């Protein structure tokens, strides 16, 4: 993991001191709410339905056990004993008081954390593949460049008042687990013919009220030019992006408006000027300095065939199911990536109590080299678990109610906080997720259904990623009543697609039945070996429409 040196340490402390003064100026009345709002947002502080909400950055989803314990302590000390992990790999606290925020930030700074740029019209916390550095299918470790981007974008003087927020995601695997095609900039690491590292640069993706799958602006960007190329894209956007209409201000609208060809020309021209003018290339020494923090740990050599692990699975079918569902191949023999689902049936997607956070921190210390990841699907990951230890890990997780075997399955839902917490929401998300979890609590059935992504957003801002779910639910308000529009066929991976609206929205009471009808239709039509998307792509949306609305 990256570790702060004196520079990072001093910088984050100075940022907290600055914000402490801004909070004092707000409380004294020197700053109006209108003036304070953009300042607090740049430190991740929202005013939500019932209270303030603080969004703490977890850069590219990587946490140490020490940091996780501190999050638990903050949840207990300043909040109501829990936190909410988000689709941007961050954590949100739902009940802090304004006057406590500077102290919370100081406490975070002690463990090398902050809330810088987790909101506002700036470059947001960079997200990455949650399995970065350990996945068996990885080409390159994206964390080094994610950290470079974090540093480059932090308090960037030119790009802190962009037309709108700006999200960058990066993956080092051909299979995209970071949803890079629905980000303002998506970076996919690859190597050229000579083996030199670089990036495919995707631009203009996004969700919200205008969902767009990003387009490739550059097939291969040598990695040393990452910063200058990012500056070129951001400068073109900062100068030309629309500022007259909030809903048309994201870079995706600019790209659509001028077309990808023209956008590419603008960026390449700006990039050429940057490169002939002043040096912005990444110094190799800096990449090496940062890269050293991400050097692979020393893995203990393990027995190639671990009989105990196989035996535990034979004897304990619940463990076997969890292993089938919640582990992912590690690049190191004898190790595995263990995913801790934060989606218990009937639970709140992404929420963890302080006690659960501490259990995960302890498990990370004992079994995962002290490291934890946050996945954008709102789950936690122990990235370095020996297969031989997995049974012990699972038993501890069962005790903490953290062993739901549903990774990638229908109950592994992404849900935004919705109308229960959020000021922008039109409808509730969490209770719908809870009811769907209750409906699909037969774990064998859920596994048998195979991979299905089901995501729920409480409004068109799409924080719940409903556009890119196989089954997407969007909450809408109809005369003060909650309704849910359903989309089918979306996906967030390397074949990213926006779901298609199946028909008129369903009421709060009807929507769970509608989801079941969709699942039943799929089961009825499914051919051997198919997953939901295969069946959907083969039969199309019509059979689902007929079952949901009858033949007309």
């Amino acid at each position, binding site marked *: 993991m990256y570790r702060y040196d004196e520079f990072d340490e001093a910088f984050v402390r100075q940022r907290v001191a600055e914000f402490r003064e801004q909070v004092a100026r707000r409380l004294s*009345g020197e700053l109006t709410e209108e003036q304070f709002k953009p300042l607090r947002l740049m430190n991740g502080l929202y*005013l939500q339905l019932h209270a303030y909400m603080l969004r703490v950055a977890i850069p590219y989803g990587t946490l140490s056990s020490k940091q996780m314990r501190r999050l638990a302590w903050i949840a207990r000390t300043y909040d109501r004993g829990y936190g909410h992990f988000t689709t941007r790999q961050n954590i949100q606290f739902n009940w802090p008081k*304004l006057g406590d925020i500077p102290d919370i930030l100081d406490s975070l700074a002690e463990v090398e954390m902050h809330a810088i740029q987790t909101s506002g019209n700036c470059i947001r916390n960079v997200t990455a593949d949650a399995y970065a550095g350990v996945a068996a299918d990885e080409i390159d470790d994206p964390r080094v460049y994610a950290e470079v981007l974090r540093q480059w974008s932090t308090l960037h003087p030119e790009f802190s008042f962009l037309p709108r927020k700006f999200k960058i995601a990066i993956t080092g695997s051909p299979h995209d687990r970071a949803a890079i095609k629905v980000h303002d900039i998506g970076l996919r690491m690859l190597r050229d013919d000579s083996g030199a590292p670089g990036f495919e640069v995707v631009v203009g993706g996004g969700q919200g009220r205008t969902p767009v799958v990003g387009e490739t602006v550059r097939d291969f960007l040598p990695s040393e030019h990452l910063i200058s190329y990012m500056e070129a894209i951001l400068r073109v956007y900062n100068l030309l992006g629309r500022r007259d209409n909030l809903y048309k201000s994201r870079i995706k609208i600019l790209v659509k408006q001028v077309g990808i060809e023209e956008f590419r020309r603008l960026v390449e021209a700006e990039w050429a000027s940057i490169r002939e003018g002043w040096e912005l290339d990444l110094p190799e020494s800096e990449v090496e300095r940062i890269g050293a923090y991400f050097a692979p740990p020393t893995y203990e050599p393990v027995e190639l065939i671990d009989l105990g692990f196989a035996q535990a699975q034979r004897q304990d079918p619940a463990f076997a199911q969890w292993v089938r569902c919640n582990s992912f191949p590690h690049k190191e023999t004898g190790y595995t990536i263990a995913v801790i689902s934060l989606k218990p049936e009937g639970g709140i997607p992404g929420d963890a109590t302080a006690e659960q956070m501490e259990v995960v921190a302890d498990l990370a210390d004992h079994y995962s080299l002290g490291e934890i990841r946050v996945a954008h699907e709102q789950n936690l990951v122990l990235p370095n678990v020996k297969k031989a230890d997995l049974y012990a890990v699972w038993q501890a997780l069962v005790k903490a109610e953290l062993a739901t075997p549903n990774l990638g399955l229908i109950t592994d839902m992404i849900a935004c906080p919705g109308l229960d917490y959020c000021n922008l929401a039109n409808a509730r998300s969490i209770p719908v997720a809870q009811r769907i979890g209750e409906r699909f609590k037969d774990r064998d059935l859920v596994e048998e259904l195979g991979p299905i992504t089901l995501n729920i957003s409480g409004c068109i801002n799409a924080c719940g990623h409903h556009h890119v779910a196989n089954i997407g639910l969007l909450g809408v308000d109809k005369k003060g009543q909650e309704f849910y529009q359903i989309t089918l066929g979306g996906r967030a991976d390397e074949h990213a697609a926006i779901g298609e609206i199946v028909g008129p929205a369903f009421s709060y009471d009807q929507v769970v039945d509608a989801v079941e009808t969709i699942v039943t239709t799929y089961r009825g039509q499914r051919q051997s070996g198919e997953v939901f998307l295969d069946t959907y792509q083969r039969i199309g949306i019509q059979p689902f429409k007929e079952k949901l609305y009858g033949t007309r």
Partner: protein
Amino acid sequence: MTAQVMTANRLDDGAVVYLAPEGAWSERLVEAEVAEDAATLHRLEAEAERAVRGQLVVGPYLFTVALEAEGPRPIGQREIIRAAGPSVGTDFKVVAANDNDRAGN
């Protein structure tokens, strides 16, 4: 006109508050002053404006209520949830606006 209540979030902790008689801000909707005529409405608006300038509350607005024996009741889902707390079925919601002893106060 429909019966209306003035609400806002408290600057200090963001809590949902309702404008009660004599310029007090209460966490309990039942204590809110209900405006049923234009004169009261304007008085509530002026009072809210004063509270904004005095760093007491943020973002005040009026919303429609139904009048019942126990007092004003919110109609829209948003105000129902603001009044009652999150409906997510855990013990987080016990510390809702109708609880005098709000945690953290």
